[in-house]
């Protein structure tokens, strides 16, 4: 038919070029910021001495040595395991709960103040309690991470369920969809972007929670390394452990973003970039 020619007028090849160029530009600027930060760190280290602030080079070689000997890797893996297990244990029920309660607004309203309280309460202050309950092993760390992640993801999933477009639901119902199909085909895909916003916020908290729990009481993990370094007045060791923590956060962040990009292929690219914050 005649009106066929009204597709997008932008040349896709052109668009991809300009996108690639701006990505490259952003990467270049990020490298500059990194160099500036390292320079400030180096200056602080020179001014105060490596005893107080380990130098960037010293930290880098400590990280490399730890990685080669496998020592640092073992501790990092332990922390990552705690964070990942707690993340899954907290995020899955948190994401599922608003869907389960969708048809029961009263139940959602009843639990709301408790959820707000749980969201606002400083979860890290629970760490001593969890250690009391679950011991100094991996369980107390996983519990702390799970509870931290739970409230963040719950509220973002709830926002996603509430942002539901009633017109899409009506369309689906008129087309013959039952309640379960409405949840599966309309509510869930519509809430996925919101859930990912929660996951992205919760991700660094999960690693932070694991590290803090280790700081308080542990004989393994990066938090333990931080604690050990501090006790030995070894700032380079502390900073090396923190560098490893940061690297884990990067990997976690990258994983969440990759999963999001895969699941949200349907979104307009500009929208996605805005969401990912890159």
């Amino acid at each position: 038919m005649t009106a066929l020619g009204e597709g997008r007028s932008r040349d896709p090849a052109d668009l991809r070029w300009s996108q690639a160029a701006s990505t490259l530009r952003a990467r270049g600027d990020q490298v500059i910021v990194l160099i500036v930060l390292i320079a400030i760190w180096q200056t602080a280290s020179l001014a105060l001495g490596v005893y107080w602030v380990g130098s960037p080079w010293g930290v880098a070689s400590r990280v490399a040595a730890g990685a080669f000997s496998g020592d640092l890797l073992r501790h990092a893996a332990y922390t990552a395991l705690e964070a990942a297990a707690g993340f899954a244990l907290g995020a899955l029920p948190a994401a599922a709960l608003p869907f389960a309660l969708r048809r029961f607004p009263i139940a959602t309203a009843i639990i709301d103040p408790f959820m707000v309280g749980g969201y606002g309460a400083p979860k890290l202050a629970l760490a001593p309690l969890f250690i009391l309950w679950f011991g100094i092993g991996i369980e107390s760390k996983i519990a702390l991470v799970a509870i931290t992640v739970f409230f963040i993801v719950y509220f973002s999933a709830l926002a996603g369920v509430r942002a539901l477009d009633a017109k899409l639901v009506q369309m689906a119902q008129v087309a013959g969809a039952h309640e379960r199909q409405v949840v599966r085909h309309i509510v869930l895909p519509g809430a996925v972007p919101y859930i990912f916003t929660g996951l992205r916020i919760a991700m660094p908290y999960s690693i932070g929670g694991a590290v803090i729990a280790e700081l308080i009481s542990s004989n393994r993990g990066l938090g333990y390394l931080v604690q050990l370094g501090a006790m030995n007045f070894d700032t380079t060791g502390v900073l090396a452990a923190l560098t490893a923590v940061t690297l884990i956060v990067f990997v976690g962040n990258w994983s969440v973003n990759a999963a999001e990009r895969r699941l949200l292929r349907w979104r307009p690219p500009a929208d996605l970039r805005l969401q990912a914050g890159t």
Partner: protein
Amino acid sequence: MATAEPLLEIRALCKRFPARAGREHPPWVIRDLTFSVAEREFLTIVGPSGAGKSTLLNMLAQIETASGGEVRFQSQPIALDDPKALSPGLACRIGYVTQEDNLLPWRTMLQNVLFPLAVQGRLTPETRARAETLIRTVGLAGFEHHYPHELSGGMRKRAALIRTLVYDPPVILMDEPFGALDAQTRTQLQQDLHQLWIGGRKTIVFVTHDIAEAIALGDRTLVLSPPPAHVAGEHVIDIPHPRDIRAIMTHPAFAGLYERIRAQVH
């Protein structure tokens, strides 16, 4: 034609929205609206904006309750007073093409068109072939795997239109489906719809505020009064099918009909 056994009967239908706390009862949107739709008829309804045209279709599609009156489908009364008793789409017998396209942004165009068939469990090689034919008919071939945001407004409208046609409901309600389109695309889609209707002879209730569109497509046109809406006029459009929508304004009967309808639309 309109006097044959009615497929859909609307008697003394009323609607007003529930009062909000602390305010007096809102006025009637629709009051004592009575008309019927014959099988295979293309009924167009015109009226001023705010005349409750969308509300009327929402009630017929059973996504909104009525405040009084009666609707019968094939002589069977439809429960319209209790929101819990509503059966949207009346078990897939009433299709609804809304003002907005309401395509699912996370589904490709083809997946959107197949959506009703998928949820109804009717995805077969035959129905898929039917979907492909419709996609070709409205000029969407080649865009099957595009997401809605990658389609133009006109293409989205077409996809929404054939999403309803594909599962073949006996009655189709349309709420200004071509409202926000440019004149060219609009005429083209009107012609497409007319062709599809000639080919399949569905029963269509088509709401619009455009008198020319109402004449071009309809067998019969109802004029709604300003709110509270009731039928202010009825016009049989005696222009033979198939019609050339592009040249409809040059038809000898057009000018007279247009004038008479316009005089009733306030």
